[in-house]
């Protein structure tokens, strides 16, 4: 799935990384605990989270993730957007709650692992 499809499915507003929306991603995860993301996530390229601070972007950087979706309409601050922009990570916000947002993407074929059903 292209990152632009995620944006459309979640009716999300993009904060940075507009130029990367054409990239393909094949898996995603959702968590508010960066500890858990660092410990359990393997190759998921997309992170859905309700956690707004800058360490969300640093965590994504360490894990080579490509896109962060903030749920419940949360909007990151300017520092967070700047860091993500420099690192080539797409940031977007959706009004959907965590469960809805994950459900919509899963339904559309974006699983935890690339091939799982």
């Amino acid at each position, binding site marked *: 799935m292209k990152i632009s499809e995620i944006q459309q499915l979640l009716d999300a507003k993009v904060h940075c990384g507009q130029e990367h929306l054409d990239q393909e991603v094949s898996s995603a995860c959702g968590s*508010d*605990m*960066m*500890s*858990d993301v*660092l*410990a359990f996530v393997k190759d998921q390229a997309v992170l859905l989270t309700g*956690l707004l*601070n*800058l*360490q*969300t972007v*640093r*965590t994504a*950087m*360490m*894990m*080579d993730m490509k896109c962060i979706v903030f749920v419940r309409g949360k909007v990151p601050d300017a*520092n967070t957007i700047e860091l993500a922009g420099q690192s080539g990570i797409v940031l977007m916000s959706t009004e959907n709650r965590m469960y809805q947002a994950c459900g919509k993407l899963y339904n559309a074929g974006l699983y935890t692992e690339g091939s799982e059903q």
Partner: protein
Amino acid sequence: MEPIKLSFNVDGENFVSAGEASTAVKTTLKKMGFPGDTVRRVAIAMYEAEINMVIHAHGGTVDVEICPDKIVIVLADKGPGIPNIDLAMQEGYSTAPDDVRSLGFGAGMGLPNIKKYSDDLEIETELGVGTTLTITINC
């Protein structure tokens, strides 16, 4: 090749800057052409340890030595020390207060995760004096 040495101060009062050292090391390793898997292991292990320094130990220093066959990261703090290392190494054991948890950390997964991603992990700690982690990752 002579080993390349990098040193950083980690500000223990600033949660926002936590992870800057790990980011710099990751960028350097990538530029030097280390395999993606090695770069990611170093980045995750060092980031976990750097965050620990900030949330548990008021910051400290990090010294990184990059050799062609291995990367050694030494993180030294003057924090409270770890009373029981076996307990601290258990998944889910955390003394982090609620305010740390609301920042997305404090699940008790960091040290086990560092162990998982490193080839060798040594922890020297003394109560009231500080903690030094030596993380070795082979390429």
